[in-house]
């Protein structure tokens, strides 16, 4: 019932966003049962038309595009989720530490983050991938660390806002330990902005992974992955086949969905009104 009440409290754009997320999540979770064919099974001729025997046609070597999209949802969404979780655990922990301890801890952490963050993320990812190669685990770790940097900044900033509150000073004066203050005073009061940030960061991570895959530096075939599917089928565009646009559209749809939801949640949480 709580879920229903939550959905009711959303405006129409947020509901659309939520619908898109739930839909893709469902596809990812039940991929093997939903997909009509196997992940890398060749089922027909190349470039079978969209809307014919195969709903989304077949790709450049004759695999069912719909099945690959469904499996791709699983690979791409889960990888991005793991990566974002990784970056949040690391980034938020560092950010809270810097905010609560202050002093040299804050100084050192902030300077390191300043430097890493001043290299554009895609360039940073390209350098590391060129050095260590691509695998599911490496990608999650590398991108997780890169994105922990902006998360650190946000987490530190929101924790600082809480940190200056008198109730944190009151807890310090009571003699509470560092861990207690982080867990009981700071974390509960930073959950809302951090949750919104999680949504946004997930989009960025998702786009970066898709971008890397698109450049041929992400998950390697025959694993289906939306970004890689765009790339491997991109030749079709020149022949007038729109097949590669379908996985690209899926990426776009999911990120727009998340953005719509996060946007309205942030608006609601801050009670922000634009009408000055």
């Amino acid at each position, binding site marked *: 019932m709580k879920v229903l009440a939550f959905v009711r409290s959303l405006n129409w754009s947020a509901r659309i966003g939520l619908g898109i997320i739930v839909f893709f999540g469902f596809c990812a979770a039940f991929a093997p049962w939903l997909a009509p064919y196997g992940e890398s099974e060749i089922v027909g001729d190349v470039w079978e038309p969209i809307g014919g025997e195969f709903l989304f046609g077949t790709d450049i070597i004759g695999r069912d595009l719909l099945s690959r999209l469904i499996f791709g949802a699983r690979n791409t969404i889960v990888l991005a989720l793991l990566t974002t979780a990784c970056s949040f655990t690391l980034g938020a922990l560092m950010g809270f530490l810097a905010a609560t301890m202050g002093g040299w801890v804050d100084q050192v952490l902030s300077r390191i983050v*300043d*430097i*890493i963050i*001043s*290299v*554009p*993320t*895609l*360039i940073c990812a*390209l*350098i*590391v*991938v*060129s*050095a*260590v190669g691509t695998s599911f685990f490496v990608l999650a770790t590398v991108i997780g660390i890169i994105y922990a940097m902006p998360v650190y900044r946000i987490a530190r900033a929101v924790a600082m806002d809480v940190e200056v509150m008198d109730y944190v000073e009151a807890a310090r004066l009571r003699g509470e330990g560092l861990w207690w203050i982080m867990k009981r005073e700071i974390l509960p009061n930073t959950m809302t902005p951090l949750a919104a940030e999680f949504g946004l960061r997930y*989009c960025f991570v998702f*786009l970066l992974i*898709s*971008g890397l895959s*698109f*450049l*041929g*530096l992400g998950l390697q075939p025959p694993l289906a992955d939306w*970004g890689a599917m*765009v790339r491997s089928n*991109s030749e079709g*565009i*020149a022949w*007038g086949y*729109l097949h*590669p*646009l379908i996985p*690209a*559209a899926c*990426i*776009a749809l999911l*990120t*727009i969905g*998340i*953005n*719509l939801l996060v*946007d309205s949640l942030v608006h609601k949480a801050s009670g922000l009104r*634009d*009408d*000055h």
Partner: protein
Amino acid sequence: MSNSLFLMIAKRIGLGFFTLLAISLLITVGVEALSGDICTAILGQMASEETVAACHARLDLDRPVMVRYVEWLVNFVQGDMGRSMANDRTVMELVSARIGNTLYLAAFSSMVAIPLGIALGVVAALYRNTGFDRGISVTTLSTISVPDFFVAYILMALFAVKFSIFPAISNVAGSMGFWERAYVSALPVLTLTLISIAHLMRMTRASIVNLLASPYIEMAKLKGIKPGRVIVKHALPNAWAPIIQVVILNIAFMVVGVVIIEVVFVYPGLGALMVDSVQLRNMPVVQATAMIFASAYVLLNLLADVLAILANPRLRHRR
């Protein structure tokens, strides 16, 4: 210019250069530490010690890493970026053939995107919560949340395949005249421009809306000042700092945004070169191009900060 202002800017510039140094260290030493021993990778675990040593000597890996780093840096600053591992051309040769193309792409897009994006942002902020504002907000939100290559391919499918107006492949060459070059690179420019406009517009709108909420804007209205004058005299002088930031951050964004767009349109720029080299694990080229991209990004951010300091009336006129 007052002394403390000068000091503040000097400090910021110093920090910028320190950052560049740290990045160069990461790009060279860090990458080497991450990638493990190249020679064992090339020759296999079974290779004898002598062959590995010979390989080290050939690739100049037998000296201490810090010595090689300093050497690399000194050479880099002097324009010597080493030799490509794929073919025996110097990296400088490869880079200089392409850097112009990338700059052309970024500059051309900036000239269209910056005035248009800021104008749209200001208009949306002034007419906020109208149909125009909502429409443009949804459009830009969609544009920035889709992958760059999606925009690129849609434009390609539309203008190159369906209507055959522009070429799908933008293989510009140095021998081309202005119009031919513009024609050939039309699609990448258009893609980059669309994406930049979306970013610029959203950031401009946000900073203007923020500004219009200030008590001094309310005060100006209560003094009976006409809306046009409120914007020009009261909002704009305080909006320069955020707008300059927006513009430069956007150029910085373009520097990176070109990578994927260049790959889509097979545009012979620095980004495509970097991606090719990463695939071939051609480290000297990767390092050089990464250093160039990172430097451009850091220097632009530095410029944005310095201009923001200069544009802030509270800092310009000290007590």
